[in-house]
């Protein structure tokens, strides 16, 4: 059965390495923070100027002057630091953030990502996404494998205006975990529990590389 959002977040949480600095995008990526194992210590960066995002506040702790990049109220933690947007993106652009997890509307088989604009329909702006994808060493995309209308979001080439080129390293969808190979192509690594390779093939429009047995994801 395809994963729900929580499932995708849980699977991505397994990718998170101890002692790293991570930027989580809005939506599923933000949920990832809830599933990082206790023994894995990471520091979450919010591009609006906070390093060390704490949990959501208690009702009485809510502070309008302390929000994350999704405009949600948050808290600080011991060891947190605050800074300006220029310093925040200096941090991002300078390659100091180890991992970026973000959502996407489309990913191409060479790692291009589109997630900021649907011409004539949706104009919200790119926010920090273009800076993040142009700068991060390691980028994981969290998304549904297919659009609401059933079209594959893993394509040979993106059809929407792109956010960045050749930058996505890994994709976790409701159906599968895939690496984007440096030479191009989606390499299938894991299947969602109960999802067949055949289903993933059907849902993937770009070049899918399948080698040997494809194990099922292990989720707690």
């Amino acid at each position, binding site marked *: 059965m395809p994963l729900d959002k929580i499932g995708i977040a849980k699977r991505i949480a397994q990718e998170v390495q101890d002692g790293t600095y991570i930027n989580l995008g809005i939506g599923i990526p933000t949920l990832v923070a809830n599933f990082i194992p206790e023994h894995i210590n990471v520091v979450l960066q919010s591009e609006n100027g906070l390093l060390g995002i704490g949990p959501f506040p208690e009702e009485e702790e809510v502070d309008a002057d302390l929000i994350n990049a999704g405009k949600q109220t948050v808290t600080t933690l011991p060891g947190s630091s605050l800074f300006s947007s220029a310093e925040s993106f200096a941090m991002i652009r300078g390659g100091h953030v180890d991992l970026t997890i973000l959502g996407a509307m489309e990913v191409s088989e060479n790692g291009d990502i589109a997630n900021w604009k649907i011409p004539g329909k949706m104009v919200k702006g790119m926010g920090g996404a273009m800076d993040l994808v142009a700068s991060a060493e390691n980028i994981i995309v969290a998304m549904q494998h297919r659009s609401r209308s059933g079209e594959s979001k893993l394509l040979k080439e993106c059809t929407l205006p*792109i956010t*960045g080129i050749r930058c996505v390293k890994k994709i976790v969808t409701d159906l599968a975990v895939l690496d984007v190979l440096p030479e191009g192509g989606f390499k299938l690594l894991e299947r969602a529990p109960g999802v067949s390779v055949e289903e993933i093939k059907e849902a993937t429009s770009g070049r899918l590389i399948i080698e040997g047995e494809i194990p099922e994801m292990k989720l707690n």
Partner: protein
Amino acid sequence: MINKVVNNADEAIADIPDNATLMLGGFGLCGIPENCIAALVKKGVKGLTCISNNAGVDDFGIGLMLKTRQVKKMISSYVGENAEFERQLLSGELEVDLIPQGTLAERIRAGGAGIPAFYTPAGFGTEVAEGKEVREFNGKMYLLESWLQADFAIVKAWKGDKAGNLIFKGTARNFNPMMATAGKITIAEVEELVEVGELDPNHIHTPGIFVQRIFQGVNYEKRIEQRTTKIK
């Protein structure tokens, strides 16, 4: 010391003319100059170019100035919380320049720091790169981006002193410090205006040299866009 203290927002923005270019601090509704925005709406100044990361929401922040059609052009990175904005944009009534957030922040810093242009990787290979100079450094591709400056920069701080020194609170800092450096005239509204000498020199985020006018604001609403609390 030349007196930088003005009585209120009306006085601070009194000489902002039609068609001025403004920078307005804040990220979402966090750290926005609420008093000055209200005064700009009241004054009815028109044809403004507003440089601000976001455009407020329909009934607060810069959204208030969009409703009254005072804004000719927005220079922002993300405007997704504002239906009126999207309507004006799609209908062509509003000019919009969408800029990657880090590029926006750095262009404003550059404007204050006397750096007319710099190279950044953000947007390479995308439509943001159209018409821009592209250059390779160490095997990676970069775009040339130019500085941004404004006739008036309007920022919001937590504490300020009469010499114009500012301290921000939490993530309400965001775009405010860079904008303070990039205005020909910088106006700071603060929650608490203190005497010179009350702020620790080592805690000051924006040195007074950047601020030409300062006042203590009133009735801060500090609206929250996504009030999110711990699930019990």
